[in-house]
């Protein structure tokens, strides 16, 4: 029983990181129908910016460091959108997708060349003592940093939900998702809405990168593997849907943790992708996605 609860916490931690990345994929796809293949590498970059801040500015408390890294990564995300994607907004869709692939490879190699290819760990900034209450009542060994990562991630997702559903810019984002052509006619600045979407997505991915670097380790190529996993999670949940991305992430993390715990860690990726294909055959638009109608 206690190991199951412990595994649940492991799954929740991994799922929280997946969700922070998956939200960026899902929001960008929802708004401009673009699979941003560079997003996994934005996540990686966020982790490395976090590493840089913790090593250079050791005095900085975590709750200052996290927003600062998120802000810096958001700036990078917006810059990439401005330089590489905006000009292609009305071009063939595949040109933009290829551009995102190029940006992703560029970021990977840039970090590899400037920081080095080694696997690193972000110095721990969260308390690593175990949560006594949980041990007494559930018998599970859970550390504070794990719990904090899950809680902060959930808080960030809640803030995102509020921004999208309760603010003016969120309304504009949903309007663009609904009809990209009509919204500028209503006097909404389309470029601003898209830039804000990229900023939010990149900031969330940066938080994911820092959490991942605290819980596990970071390297320049981690964006490929984790980015794809988070992308799968977004698709399972129904790409374009915020709730779907979160649901899919926790689902995927649960399946992965169970596979590693009870089968074999070698089968992790195969089972994740097998699940994806099975689910897509049953629900072609993901669990919470909206079916696209074929118009003649």
């Amino acid at each position, binding site marked *: 029983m206690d190991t199951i609860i412990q595994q649940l916490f492991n799954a929740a931690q991994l799922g929280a990181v997946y969700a922070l990345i998956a939200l960026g994929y899902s929001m960008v*796809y929802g708004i401009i129908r673009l*699979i941003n293949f560079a997003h996994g590498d934005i996540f990686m970059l966020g982790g490395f910016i976090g590493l840089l801040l913790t090593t250079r500015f050791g005095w900085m408390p975590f709750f200052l460091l996290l927003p600062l890294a998120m802000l810096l990564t958001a700036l990078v995300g917006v810059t990439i959108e401005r330089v*590489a994607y905006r*000009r*292609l907004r009305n*071009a*063939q869709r*595949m*040109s*933009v*997708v*290829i*551009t995102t*692939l*190029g*940006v*992703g*490879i*560029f970021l990977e*190699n*840039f970090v*590899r*060349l400037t920081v080095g290819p080694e696997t690193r760990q972000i110095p721990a900034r969260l308390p690593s003592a175990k949560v006594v209450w949980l041990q007494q009542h559930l018998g599970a060994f859970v550390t504070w940093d794990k719990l904090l990562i899950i809680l902060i991630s959930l808080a960030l997702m809640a803030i995102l939900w509020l921004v999208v559903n309760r603010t003016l810019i969120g309304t504009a984002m949903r309007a663009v998702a609904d009809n990209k052509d009509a919204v500028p006619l209503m006097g909404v600045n389309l470029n601003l809405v898209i830039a804000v979407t990229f900023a939010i997505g990149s900031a969330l991915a940066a938080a994911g990168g820092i959490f991942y670097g605290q819980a596990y380790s970071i390297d320049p190529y981690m964006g*490929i593997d984790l980015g*794809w996993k988070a*992308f*799968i999670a977004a*698709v399972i949940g129904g*790409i374009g849907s915020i709730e779907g991305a979160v649901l899919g992430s926790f689902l995927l993390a649960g399946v992965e943790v169970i596979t590693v715990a009870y089968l*074999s860690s*070698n*089968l992790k*990726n*195969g089972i994740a*992708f*097998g699940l*994806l*294909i099975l689910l*897509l*055959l049953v629900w*072609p638009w993901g669990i919470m996605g909206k079916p696209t109608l*074929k118009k*003649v």
Partner: protein
Amino acid sequence: MSTQPQPEPTTPPPESGLPKVRFWMVCALILALALPLQLSVDAGLFPDVLNPYYLHLLTIIGMNIILVASLNLLNGYLGEFALGHAGFMAVGAYTAALLATKVLPGAAALPPVIGTIGILVVSLGGAMLASAGVGYLIGLVTFKTVGDYLAIITLGFNMIIVNAIQNIEFVGGPRGFTGIPKNTNFVAVAVCALLTIAVLRNLIQSSFGRVWVSIRENAIAAELMGVSIARAKNWAFTIAAAFAGLAGGLWAQNQQFITPRSFDYIKTTEILVMLYLGGMASLSGSILGVVAYTLLMELLRNLLSAFAPQLAEWRMLISPLILIIIMLTRQTGLLGNREWRWLRPRPGA
């Protein structure tokens, strides 16, 4: 996908009669050059001009042409965004490696040239059959999906194939498959590449292949004209997979060492980059894209190591930058969907 009108290939421009250079002439020329080239490099003649390195480059180019042209069938002509080409290549490479090392070692007793050719034909045939089978299965599963979801499912299959091979201890698991005999040389690659281009060129111009373009241009209209979309897609996946398997089989017997990781999505991306660099729905574009990309990468490597060795690693930054710049300035690739004249079919044929 259909932003530009497809040039009508069967009606020649009025001012031109028969194309001066014909497809069979190009094939004959390349074949006539390939054998003496290979023999003189093997014999070490003219070491200054006929460097084995150049022949190696040509071999790589030939194998990449097979890969890119077969992916063009799916991404260019059928108009889907398939992201799993390296997976088919992996199936072919491992099948050929198994056949060449475990099943056919007895063929080494045959006279040298005949034995090698025999092993090559059997192993490459097996590789094509195996990956065609996998392609058929993937086509069956994906026929309902289009667009982004098809991209994701094909990518998923690529990852599953790589993951499955990693878990098969019999073929070396994650450590890779070693000790494959070197049966592939430039002549074999040239023959296979020309065969691929010939088959694809004729298929695409046939009524059988035009169904693919009709699906790309308007799937609903094609369906109303009686086209079975599921069947046509399934054929496209099977054929494209078979040729990717052929390239994989050649590659395994050229490198002599393969690992599952060399067939992951980075390889797929590289194939995609060459395809988009050259231009979609154009076999000429596939050839040009492969040649341009391969030569550019080698040129950058040589230039940087000659003039600024400390910057040699930065080559890895330049290649994605080139890709981005091409996409920003010339989205249709170098050739768009035009064909060189010698690749077009004979007028009235």
